[in-house]
């Protein structure tokens, strides 16, 4: 039984071991009902009913196994599924964008893997995904190699033998040290904020009571301790979550594909075809930046930003690892670490004015309140708002930059969510040059290189217009020549 392509290939069943897996997963789904049945059965002494309860999920599992067949022909992958509602899924081989392997703990015990074939369509319904659940691990890996090799016909075309596996070159591997960065992902800030937000009113109410000596049990120390405990638990949850998702992370290049393997319990293996790898995004949200960490995602043609989990090249990890990884993926260090051109004084001015305008409602409200008789201490709030706005603006000014480095359009911007994006010239499929009246007056524009993956574009914020045009000219020679102002 090979997964090799044969014209008019026969329909195949999935691995018979799924007869074991399906009942177990169905049993888990039916667990509440089953417990109810067993309890009821035990109480009324009707034992056989409980057995029937077990029989239903087992039967469903068998039906799923018997009714699911698939085949791989020279041109298409096809999947048939369902007893009452038949699903016939079929996709041309050349539309395959990604091939993922996943294995839950049950799958892993039995040596199985689920093959998920991504075609870049925006299907969210689980029923309509091309999912082979499951095949023996080696067979799934071989089928993946075959599906990816169709995209890159190397050697003699149409050979039936499974391609010889190219050696794997590991670029990044999980290290326990990475766990340090788990709490610094953006999410933990939200959690901390929520804890503080919930804690502050509590503290206030406590302040009132502490003035009464008999309620000393609610001393600030106790409250502080409680807060710390909550924070510690949150951090622990994040570390465990990080470990479960990213444990055993490996990024490796094999032939013409990048493989990302990760997951402590459920193994997940994503493959990104090199020809579809348009670029990379290095994210450095403020918290992660403070911890000297970075996160890297790939920009993959045909994969939208919403399918982010399929494009992870590196979870939050040390900056040096992120730089080395991105360098390996892009094939050059320049787009990753090369110097960027700053956008000049007028772009900086825009950051300052926007920050100050942004915090002006707070200032106005505070001033009006104080004028109306609120305690003058409130003015501190206005000062704090202005200080935060100015700090953000200064950081945003520092971040602004662009460049054309080693055949990549590179852009960096943002403060709280700073990122540096690099997009290979060959994957630029158009340019958007947007300028409001204010921007035009300052001689600036926002240039976006459009592409068929990720967010659909890599935007260069508030760049002087001649430099925007120069960047576009360098990245796509000839495209703009007809539209330039005559000299």
């Amino acid at each position, binding site marked *: 039984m090979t997964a090799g392509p044969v014209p008019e290939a026969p329909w195949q069943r999935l691995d018979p071991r799924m007869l074991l897996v399906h009942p177990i997963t169905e049993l888990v789904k039916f667990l509440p009902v089953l417990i109810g049945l067993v309890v009821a059965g035990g109480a009324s002494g009707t034992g056989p009913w409980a057995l029937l309860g077990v029989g239903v999920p087992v039967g469903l599992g068998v039906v799923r196994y018997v009714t699911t067949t698939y085949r791989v022909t020279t041109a298409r992958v096809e999947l048939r599924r369902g007893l009452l509602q038949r699903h016939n899924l079929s996709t041309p081989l050349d539309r395959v964008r990604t091939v993922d392997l996943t294995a839950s703990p049950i799958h892993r015990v039995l040596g199985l893997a689920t093959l998920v074939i991504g075609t870049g369509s925006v299907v969210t319904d689980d029923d309509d995904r091309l999912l082979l659940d499951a095949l023996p691990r080696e067979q799934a890996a071989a089928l993946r190699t075959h599906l990816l090799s169709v995209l890159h016909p190397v050697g003699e075309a149409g050979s039936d033998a499974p391609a010889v596996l190219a050696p794997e070159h590991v670029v990044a591997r999980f290290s326990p040290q990475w766990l340090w960065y788990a709490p610094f992902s953006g999410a933990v800030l939200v959690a901390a904020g929520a804890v503080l937000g919930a804690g502050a009113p509590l503290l206030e109410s406590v302040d009132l009571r502490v003035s009464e000596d008999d309620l000393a049990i609610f001393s600030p120390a106790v409250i502080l301790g409680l807060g710390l405990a909550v924070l510690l638990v949150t951090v622990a949850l994040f570390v465990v979550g990080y470990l479960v998702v990213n444990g055993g992370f490996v990024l490796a290049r094999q032939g013409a594909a990048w493989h990302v393997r990760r997951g402590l319990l459920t193994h997940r293996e994503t493959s990104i075809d090199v020809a579809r790898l348009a670029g990379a995004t290095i994210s450095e949200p403020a918290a992660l930046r403070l911890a000297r960490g970075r996160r890297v995602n790939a920009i993959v043609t045909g994969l939208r930003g919403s399918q982010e989990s399929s494009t992870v090249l590196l979870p939050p990890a040390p900056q040096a690892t992120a730089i080395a990884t991105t360098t390996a993926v892009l094939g050059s260090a320049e787009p990753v670490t090369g110097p960027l051109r700053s956008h000049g004084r007028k772009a900086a001015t825009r950051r300052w004015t926007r920050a100050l305008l942004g915090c002006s409602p707070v200032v106005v409200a505070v001033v009006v309140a104080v004028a109306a008789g609120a305690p003058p201490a409130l003015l501190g709030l206005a000062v704090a708002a202005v200080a935060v706005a100015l700090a953000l603006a200064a950081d945003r000014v520092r971040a602004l930059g662009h460049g054309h480095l080693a055949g990549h359009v590179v852009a960096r911007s943002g403060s709280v969510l700073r990122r540096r994006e690099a997009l290979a010239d060959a994957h630029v499929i*158009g*340019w958007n*040059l947007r300028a409001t*009246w204010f921007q035009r007056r300052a001689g600036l524009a926002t240039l976006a290189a459009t592409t068929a993956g990720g967010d659909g*574009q890599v935007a260069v914020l508030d760049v002087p217009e001649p430099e925007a045009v120069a960047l576009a000219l360098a990245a796509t020679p000839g*495209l*703009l020549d*007809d*539209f330039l102002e*005559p000299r």
Partner: protein
Amino acid sequence: MNQLRDPAHRVSPRARTMWQLEAAVEAAVAVLAGGIASVVWVPGPWRWLLLGVLVVVSVASALVVPRWRYQVHRWEVSPTAVYTQRGWWARERRIAPMSRVQTVDFAQGPLARLFGLATVTVTTASAAGPLQIEGLDRDVALGLVDELTRKADLVEGDAT
């Protein structure tokens, strides 16, 4: 100095008339709704001040925006690329190489049909927005669709 020039062609002058009609209707609706709301909810002299501001803003934007829009909206097709410019306060120029064009759409709303106008939309594989030319003369639009389809067909590949 590298500077992009404006695309060569303006859209049909009838587009300006159409936009003026649209803007006038919108302004009338805004004034009417605002008028009723302020008569019902706003007391005393504030009512007339608010209404006055509403009328001035509506009339001014109905007068200015369509003209401004007509000044900005332009398009051009070279042998290798499509170049469009649209908007008014925010001006957006978009350039797509012919080799990346995926679909060319021709659309006519009821009002546009009345004015003999049409909208041509050129999409690429990017999610970041198609190139759109509004207010083209119907025959020009049809010719453009023809030309673009022919040129895009000449290029091989899946345009990603």
